[in-house]
């Protein structure tokens, strides 16, 4: 079935998650940091839909606000990765020669570094904040984007329509923007979705191991960190944030995958 990238279930889900989290101040029933010792450790009830934590703070509100932070950091990281990665790959693919070699081997080297180790070093140097985390995660995700962008632009530049454009008098400077970009846009969209999923995962992981957002502010990862020690008696501390992370990642991956499948089916005809 034809996948319409504007209207689809996974697309709708993404928008829903984004919408809910960004609207946290309006939707959250309680202040996420409000301590109410009386309700501490309560499970899902009518008062606290997702229960309350050890200090009585409402989990649902914390998840909404936490999601806001996770999503914001992840989206910023994705944007940074797209910007850096696409430029990186395009320059390599257009210039070729030693520039291409240098840029791509640098990408390979960056990808060879274990991600958590890299993050550890960076975060210890600059500290974890809403500014530093997107940059660190963005840098981690850009090499794959660079490789994808480079191979896409090299393929397109070898096409007949680019030869035709050059022969028609199109300036070299305009070539990439007006001829090539529209053709690699779907691939970039796929990469964007995959990066978004990876960014959410990375942010949650970093926060979970304590490298991310620090208390009292909490992202989903931090919530899981706070909750996992008490997982046996009060499962809801971990369960709901983990569920949120899982659904978000699945939605982004599904969206990207559907675009990719549509592109592949368009290329190979009956």
């Amino acid at each position: 079935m034809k996948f319409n990238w504007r209207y689809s279930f996974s697309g709708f889900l993404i928008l829903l998650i984004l919408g809910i989290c960004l609207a946290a101040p309006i939707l959250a029933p309680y202040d996420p940091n409000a301590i109410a010792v009386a309700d501490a450790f309560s499970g899902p009830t009518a008062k606290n839909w997702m229960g309350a934590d050890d200090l009585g703070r409402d989990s649902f509100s914390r998840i909404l606000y936490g999601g806001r932070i996770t999503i914001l950091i992840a989206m910023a990281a994705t944007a940074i990765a797209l910007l850096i990665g696409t430029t990186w790959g395009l320059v390599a693919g257009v210039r070729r020669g030693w520039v291409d070699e240098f840029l791509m081997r640098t990408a390979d080297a960056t990808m060879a570094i274990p991600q958590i180790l890299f993050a550890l070093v960076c975060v210890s140097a600059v500290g974890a904040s809403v500014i530093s985390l997107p940059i660190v995660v963005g840098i981690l995700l850009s090499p794959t984007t660079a490789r994808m962008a480079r191979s896409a632009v090299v393929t397109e530049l070898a096409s007949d329509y680019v030869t035709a454009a050059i022969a028609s008098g199109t300036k070299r400077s305009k070539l990439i923007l007006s001829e090539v970009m529209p053709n690699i846009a779907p691939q970039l969209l796929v990469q964007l979705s995959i990066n978004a999923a990876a960014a959410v995962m990375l942010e949650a992981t970093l926060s979970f191991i304590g490298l991310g957002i620090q208390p009292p502010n909490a992202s989903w990862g931090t919530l899981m960190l706070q909750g996992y020690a008490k997982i046996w008696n009060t499962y809801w501390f971990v369960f709901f944030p983990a569920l949120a992370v899982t659904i978000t990642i699945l939605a982004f991956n599904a969206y990207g995958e559907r675009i990719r499948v549509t592109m592949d089916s368009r290329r190979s005809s009956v």
Partner: protein
Amino acid sequence: MISQNDSVATLSGVSRIFKGKTGTVHALDDVTFDLKAGKTLALVGESGSGKTTAARVLLGLDQPSSGSIEVLGRELGSLKYEELRLLRREIQVVQQDPFSQLNRRHSVERIISSPLIAFNIGDKQSRRKQVIDLLKAVGLEEEHLNRRPHELSGGQCQRVAIARALAVDPKIVVLDEAVSALDVSVRAQVLNLLREIQSSRGLTYLFITHDLGVAHYMADEIAVMFRGRIVERGNRDDVFKQSQHHYTTGLLSSVPLASPTAEKRISEQVQSLPSPIEGDACNYRSRCAVGSGREDCKSLPIQITQGSSTHSWLCHSPVVRS
């Protein structure tokens, strides 16, 4: 002013060498030919003959290793990139694959106006009008303006490519196997169109093809290429009725004709064709019934024999006709 028999473009002693892992390949080996105003030169050859490289070199899309290329009095090697770009207004190309030579994300209107935009001709409205005129000139309709290439047939796409080539009113059009990918009946339509456009606009064509029938129909002059060299050159009758080079005669006899009395044997041989031998003076010698037995074909460099004012060939021992 360009008079009838002036050359509008010339390749002189052009060679193009590619160095690869398996050795050097002479895609073009001392190639010389010229295009005369308003006429069609067909460059005929099989795979590896160098005809596409010759086209690319003429269009400035590739640099020769040696030799010079002149287009409308300008020596390509001496031009800066922007000067070359501006010269492209005069020489356009239509390629083989109808779909891949059009940007699949652009509309027909955008595709045909691309050269107009590149050379800053007119404004949006005047360009649209020009595009519509061009569509009609190639046998398409205004309704095709907003279509995308994948919504059109092969023949229609090729017409769009031709319209694009005509947009900036060039003097020369290079047709690189432009009808080879089309169905027989569509091919006929497009060939008729190309001839009609040529006479109404006074265009000069470089027609590259492996199909002798098409070359015969379209060309005033034919140059036969084999492995980077022009082995025979002449007008239609010279090449088809009085061919001298053994490759040319071999080609002509290998073409199956669509006639009811088609002689059932166009080839006695079934063996694989031998590859050329490195170091032979004549690159065709290994396949040549005459040359394989001759010492001069092996070691004596061959000079061009000018048989008549129009007909020349590169052979020590050409075909003898009684």
